[in-house]
């Protein structure tokens, strides 16, 4: 069983930073867009650490989710803020965990409501498998296998340090 101890989020962040640096090098003028909420934390820190100009974008899957009929609106779904033109721009999406791919599908739809990007790539801290859609990350700092009833989520403490928590479904 995976526990939070075996996934060192800070060490994975260093690997993610290197991966995203390479993705940006291949995509002139690329902008980072973090997926609410864990991905947005990561993107904000990557923006600073990589010395990119301006602010990273934030995007929410809330308005395009395919489980709206079953689950309704998320209580704290966040708000999309993209402080740059999307049309013609290379976008690197950042998220903490890639699982079924459904969030990414929703986020790509959301992105297109703002314009037609030149390209969209995805970089994540952890790819936990279990895909239900044909979506892949261009970079994943770690690949692990978790049981479907395990929930992996990124946490950020008061000092901005990241950690992973694994919750077993009740």
């Amino acid at each position, binding site marked *: 069983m995976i526990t939070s101890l075996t996934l060192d989020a800070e060490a994975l962040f260093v690997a993610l930073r290197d991966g995203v640096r390479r993705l940006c090098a291949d995509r002139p003028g690329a902008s980072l867009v973090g997926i609410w909420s864990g991905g947005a934390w990561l993107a904000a820190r990557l923006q600073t650490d990589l010395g990119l100009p301006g602010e990273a974008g934030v995007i929410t899957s809330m308005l395009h989710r395919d489980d*709206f009929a079953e689950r309704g609106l998320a209580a704290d779904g966040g708000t*999309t803020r993209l402080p740059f033109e999307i049309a013609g721009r290379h976008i690197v999406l950042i998220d903490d965990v890639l699982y079924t791919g459904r969030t990414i599908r929703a986020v790509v739809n959301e992105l297109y*409501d703002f314009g037609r990007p030149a390209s969209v790539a995805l970089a994540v801290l952890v790819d936990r498998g279990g895909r239900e859609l044909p979506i892949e990350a261009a970079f994943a700092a770690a690949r692990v296998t978790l049981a479907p009833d395990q929930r992996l989520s990124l946490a950020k403490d008061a000092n901005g340090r990241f950690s992973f928590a694994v919750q077993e479904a009740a």
Partner: protein
Amino acid sequence: MLSQRNPQLNKNGELIHLLSIEGLPRAVITQILDTAGTFLSVNERDVKKVPLLRGKSVFNLFFENSTRTRTTFEIAAKRLSADVINLDIARSSTAKGESLLDTIANLSAMHADMFVVRHSESGAPYLIAEHCAPHVHVVNAGDGRHAHPTQGLLDMYTIRHYKGDFTQLTVAIVGDIVNSRVARSDIHALTTLGVPEVRAVGPKTLVPGDLAGMGVRVCHDMAEGVRDADVIIMLRLQNERMSGAVLPSAGEYFKRFGLTADKLALAKPDAIVMHPGPINRGVEIDSAVADGHSSVILPQVTFGIAVRMAVMSTIAGNVA
């Protein structure tokens, strides 16, 4: 009897209809305001549409006329991708004698998913919510003198937008309080959100002393009512009240309770002036104030669309 629970909430405490602000927990109200913030930005995108209500049919049932409220509900539903059907009730079956519940049964047979209801009878939206199928949701768009909850919520959104926090505010509601469903919804919302001082301002005929039971301070003097207020909500003076000898004349009313620059100067320097519309210039509000820098009357209209999107998508996502 089944139970005393609020018919707007399901057994998990989630909103399934919006009938009144009375009895809604603070968390539910705050959640709608937060969600409205997300939808406000949708109205500024290239594509001003999200697919949350795709494939759903929203019926606007306005048994009482209101162009503005009906239009903002229609825009809100369309921006959520719903199909919107506007029924001109005054000219349809109801005029031929069909009962309210028969009308609802027929529309349900046309696969309605949501009813937006305005009715001159207090409680009509409750009756519909009680009798419609479990998957159907009801929004009260104003019933009699009872409630106008989406106006109340958009007023709260407006106040929060300009003032941030509710817990230090003095809010004056001025005008025909006793007949106003807007005033009633605002008062319930303001007290639920923790506003320490809500004043009901107007002549004794329109602001009876027993309103104090709703947690408001009654003021029959305009200067006392607006002094040091952070927010002034002006209500439309309904002309039909004048004929009933409740008020002497429009001119006399304006002199005593109309909001002019002089009276506004008694409020806090950064006070905002609100009005649910339509405004009667020179009756309850002076043009210089309605168009002045303190007025947020037009932003209220813009926020109203986002708030109605938040209400419709919240209830549509919850199961009875």
